């Protein structure tokens, strides 16, 4: 059941504005300002979501929907639009500053309000989607025209190519005619085909044709005067900038250097198009706004890059997994670790909580698909959708092909390959659905490209993880999810003490484990360095990362001289 939407009228600049309220009026107010050629209806999903814990207020901007229409072009000037915004804010929340969320033209006019002197007393925070301040943009253009480096020229050309419609909107007769003669009717198809927005009954609004034609005045009244002589417009208001990676109209680099005007700036990225962000990913945008307003209301400072990220690490109770969890925690990430060994995982979480935000531990067997699905659901419900997933849990096994029993094969593949498959499926689905992108790290091994007759099952499982990651990367790029394959090499961890050996007695096996442990200890490469490599891979998006020198050398050899490695594979190395 949807809670009732209360309608009221606020008068501003001689016009009636249609205002729509929902949610508890005692809760923090968030004011939503729509763009062109929309009405307040474009916010339906986001408003319903935010109304759970906010007082949500939307209005039709002048000239659109049920609000009044200005008599002339001057009535569409930015100063007037900002005045409308303040009038609505004063009417619905006279005593407390409001949080602001705006899209497209709504965002452009909100910038005007946010950068007005003293705005910080009326506006608590501002989340902006796809609409720059025209003043900032004017400075952006000037700066690039004055310093036409190749990079700047590329940006100018790109933005120019994506702003053709703005020019078109300035031509007399043309744009209104296009809207009237069919674009309005075709709009749902445009949204579906270009923006991947599922058509729905109540959208676009029935008044679209009228709104679209009138709204052209927004462009005509403001672009030339403001871009031509931009003002200095800094602001004290905390701003959250949501950049849409598939926005056809606003280039991502338009926000380059925005920190100059907005000292308190938080950048977020959403993998969505100009309209699909609101109409398909409403819950995600609402979540970002909720996080931001909560932080601002608590007086929280602006987090550093990497801070507050949610990171999941499997096999986090020991070795590379523990070191990785700790490194992420130290970087400010909220860490969730799972392991078969709950006590070990809890210990990791405890250490992580000492050097970073509160961390959490779960007992999960990665080879159990249903348990991994349940784990992903629990993480999503209790901590949110992860930004980074590290599929690290794995076991060592040594044995030639004829020595290795079916059961041993199954165990190695269950943990090393199926564990990664389950992790990618369960958490990759969460990431793709959220639209926020993310990064998946799969810990493979140098054994993936270094054949050895003594490591048949292990190397096979790791080679499969390597290929799985390559295929996954190609698919997930469309979701803004990076995939990195890590090939550590010989790293001093517990793995040697738990590795199993085919065709050995218990006594022989522990002797071999001790020998391997000694060798790995003598090599002395610490898991912390693998953790550093993993953090770097996530930051840079590097697809394949061999870590130790021997892992790098082997990778080089495997490409230069695979025949040599095939020969070497015959050596007895256990």
């Amino acid at each position, binding site marked *: 059941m949807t809670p009732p939407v209360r309608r009221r009228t606020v008068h501003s600049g001689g016009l009636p504005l249609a205002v729509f309220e929902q949610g508890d009026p005692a809760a923090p107010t968030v004011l939503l300002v729509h763009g062109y050629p929309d009405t307040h209806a474009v916010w339906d999903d986001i408003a319903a979501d935010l109304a759970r814990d906010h007082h949500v207020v939307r209005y039709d901007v002048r000239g659109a929907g049920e609000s009044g229409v200005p008599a002339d072009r001057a009535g569409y000037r930015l100063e007037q639009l900002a005045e409308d915004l303040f009038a609505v804010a004063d009417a619905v929340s006279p005593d407390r500053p409001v949080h602001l969320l705006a899209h497209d033209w709504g965002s452009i006019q909100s910038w005007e309000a946010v950068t007005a002197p003293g705005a910080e007393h009326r506006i608590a925070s501002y989340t902006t989607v796809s609409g720059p301040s025209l003043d900032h943009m004017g400075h952006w253009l000037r700066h690039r025209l004055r310093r036409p480096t190749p990079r700047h020229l590329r940006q100018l050309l790109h933005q120019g190519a994506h702003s053709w419609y703005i020019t078109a909107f300035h031509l007399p007769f043309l744009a209104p005619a296009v809207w009237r003669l069919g674009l309005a009717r075709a709009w749902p198809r445009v949204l579906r085909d270009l923006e991947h927005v599922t058509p729905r009954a109540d959208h676009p609004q029935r008044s679209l044709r009228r709104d679209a034609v009138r709204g052209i005045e927004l462009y005509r009244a403001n672009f030339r005067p403001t871009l031509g002589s931009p003002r200095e417009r800094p602001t004290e208001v905390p701003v959250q900038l949501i950049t849409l990676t598939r926005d056809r109209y606003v280039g991502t680099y338009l926000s380059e250097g925005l920190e100059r005007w907005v000292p308190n700036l938080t950048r977020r990225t959403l993998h969505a198009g100009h309209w699909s962000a609101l109409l398909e990913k409403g819950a995600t945008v609402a979540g970002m706004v909720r996080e931001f307003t909560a932080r601002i209301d608590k007086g929280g400072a602006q987090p550093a890059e990497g801070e507050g990220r949610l990171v999941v690490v499997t096999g986090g109770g020991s070795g590379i997994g523990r070191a990785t969890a700790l490194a992420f925690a130290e970087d400010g990430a909220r860490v969730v670790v799972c392991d078969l060994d709950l006590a070990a995982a809890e210990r990791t979480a405890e250490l992580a909580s000492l050097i970073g935000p509160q961390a959490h531990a779960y007992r999960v067997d990665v080879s159990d698909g249903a348990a991994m699905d*349940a784990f992903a659901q629990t993480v999503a419900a209790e901590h949110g959708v992860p930004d980074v997933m590290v599929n690290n849990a794995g076991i060592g096994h040594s044995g030639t092909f004829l020595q290795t029993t079916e059961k041993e094969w199954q165990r190695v593949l269950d943990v090393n390959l199926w564990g990664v498959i389950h992790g990618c499926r369960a958490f990759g689905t969460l990431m793709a659905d959220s639209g926020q992108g993310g990064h998946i790290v799969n810990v493979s091994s140098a054994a993936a490209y270094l054949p050895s007759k003594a490591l048949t099952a292990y190397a096979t499982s790791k080679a499969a993880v390597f290929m799985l990651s390559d295929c996954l990367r190609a698919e997930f790029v469309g979701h803004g999810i990076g995939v990195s394959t890590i090939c550590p090499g010989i790293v001093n961890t517990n793995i040697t003490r738990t590795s199993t050996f085919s065709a050995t007695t218990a006594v022989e096996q522990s002797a071999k484990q001790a020998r391997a442990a000694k060798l790995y200890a003598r090599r002395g490469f610490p898991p912390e360095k693998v953790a550093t490599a993993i953090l770097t891979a996530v930051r840079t998006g590097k697809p394949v990362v061999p870590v130790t020198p021997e892992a790098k050398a082997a990778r080089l050899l495997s490409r230069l001289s695979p025949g040599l490695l095939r020969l070497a594979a015959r050596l007895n190395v256990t």
Partner: protein
Amino acid sequence: MPPLAKATHATPASPASSAFPAFPYTEHDLARFRATQQLAYDCAEQVAAWIEPGVTERQATAELRRRLVAAGVQDFFHVPFAWFGDRTAFRHFHTPLQFFAGNRRLEEGMPYVLDCAPIVDGYTADIGYGGKVGENRVWDRLAADLKVYRELILTEVRARRPLNEVYAAVDAQIAAHGYDNRHQVYPGRVIGHQVTRTTVRGPAGVNVFGFGVRTLQTLGRELISERLHGRSPLWADGRSSRHAPTPGLWAVEPHIGFRGVGIKFEELLVVTEDDAYWLDDDLPHVRRWTTGSATAPATASTAAEPTDTLEATR
């Protein structure tokens, strides 16, 4: 702090020839050793109460020495040491010279370690005192967990396990805790060394590389005589420690670290022919655990009972 000497590789002698020496001390001797150790910890606590942000390591060691001498100390097994901040975890130590006190200034929230080895009438103590100024949650965790090592070492030595195996057990515990072994940074990677009554007549107060001349004389004599028996007065993880604990007194100094924080204790362990015990339980770090002010130590990580369902634990 162990002597800055490498453990010489002893040729393992056949078990028959390595007859253990009898426990060499009387009750009176033990009381004197205990008194010296109390005196050392007492001075360390005085310095801990005096120390504050802005003080340098050198100033701290000078203060420690001053108080020890005022309390009647005639000579030192080694010069006093003080490490501040991440130097408590021996981060970026490349040469033994870096062990000596330097110009690092104490800051709010920093951990520190004091290490001194006073000698009174030939009775030697060698102690390590870990502290912090202000808040440091990592230090709190480490300080609480240090208890596990004190108990583990005693249990293992009581079972008369070879010293290199005790060392390995400590290493395994450090790994389970998620810490780093920092005593391996000491010369010879030692976790402890034997302490005897110095009876030689070298010049008191003169030191070579931080170690008293008398210390070196005594130590040289020990190294030679122990080596003849396939034992070492230095306790490390190599072959030279592959022998049951030698009766006598051992200064034991597990030193653990996590990120930029290190902590240790160092105190005398009494090893008799068939038993072992800590010479004194009335020491600052032990009092910290027993007064309950510290966090409960994390126990050794044991495999959790297999559980069918997913468990949220925190």
